[in-house]
């Protein structure tokens, strides 16, 4: 009904898009390694996807606004501030919580049980921590992630929380999205997405930091 075209924050050059892809690559590569060690399984990542999307298209990445998912959310403060999500399907979250609890000799009492939630939060902590540590190393920027919070609810309700900050400056989001999954797909214990949503004010700092590090010649 509102006929205004979406207001786009800024257009990035191909080079800048490649840099963001590299950030996703390095971050999720480290996250995959950490997850691999934790689960003692081979974990693989898909090539990161970096694109401008409308908020509605963001929900589609998670199966649509109404789709029930497990979302781990954390805020990143510091020199490249933003939001981060680890998103899992309900089935995947159930499988991984059950497996990890039973490994430790605890019973699995459902996804909504405090033990399952706390375990998934810790999983989010490990994934995001390794992702962000790798980015901090790459860029020399200070990043201060909060501890992840968990919500099991509609994708729209979960993801919109991470869009608030950037929605004050833009009608679209630039999303750095990577999928991690187990190599042996027959026993797939993990298949999830890590999504990085930088604040609009963080990009110039990030590009500059990568430039200083010799990762970017012309941006």
């Amino acid at each position, binding site marked *: *009904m509102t006929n205004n075209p979406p*207001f786009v924050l800024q257009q990035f050059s191909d080079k800048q898009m490649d840099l963001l892809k590299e950030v996703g690559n390095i971050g999720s590569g480290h996250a995959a390694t950490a997850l691999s060690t934790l689960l003692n399984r081979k974990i693989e990542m898909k090539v990161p996807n970096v694109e401008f999307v409308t908020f509605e298209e963001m929900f589609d990445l998670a199966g*649509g606004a109404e789709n029930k998912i497990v979302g781990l959310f954390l*805020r990143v403060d510091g020199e490249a501030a933003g939001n981060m999500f680890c998103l899992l399907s309900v089935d995947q979250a159930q499988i991984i919580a059950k497996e990890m609890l039973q490994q430790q000799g605890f019973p699995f009492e459902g996804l909504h049980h405090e033990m399952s939630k706390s375990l998934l939060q810790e999983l989010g902590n490990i994934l995001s921590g390794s992702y962000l540590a790798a980015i901090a190393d790459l860029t020399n920027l200070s990043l201060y992630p909060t501890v992840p919070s968990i919500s099991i609810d*509609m994708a729209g309700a979960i993801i919109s929380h991470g869009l608030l900050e950037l929605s004050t400056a833009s009608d679209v989001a630039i999303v750095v999205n990577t999928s991690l999954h187990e190599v042996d797909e027959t026993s797939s214990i993990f298949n999830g997405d890590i999504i990085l949503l930088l604040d609009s004010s963080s990009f110039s700092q990030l590009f500059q930091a990568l430039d200083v590090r010799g990762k970017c010649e012309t941006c």
Partner: protein
Amino acid sequence: MLEIVKVGIADLNIVKAPQLIRTSGLGSCVGVVLYDEEKKVAGLVHVMLPDSALAKANMLNPAKFADTGIQELLVQLAKNGARRSKLKAKIAGGAQMFQFESGRDLIRIGSRNIEAVKQELRSLEINLIAEDIGGNNGRTIEFNPDDSSLMIRTVNKSIKYI
């Protein structure tokens, strides 16, 4: 044939009976329905943020904010035959999806959105007939202008009407 008009996030639209109007996955966002009961015309706006003064850029979509969103809805309703003086409101949403200790500005956004919507309705002298707000769960809502009922569905609870 039952036609359901969908409204996305930071979006608005108008329907006339027998059409229904729906928005999905409200978290901290607030769904505001304004309707003319007798004319059976209704508008729905899916508000993300409390105040257009928060905008850091011009030209942002008006449906994103409580103040500009409700004002734009009034304009569209008038164009579609709703009478300004007969308009009533039902609202839902404004949850807090994640629990945090720090006092960041945008974290209590759900309750700030509710406050801003109510303030805007008060200043426009539109009666708020029913609400389903707050809590920490998402909502999908659907309004039927034929009987002025607002259906609310959550992930874990059953459907209810207000």
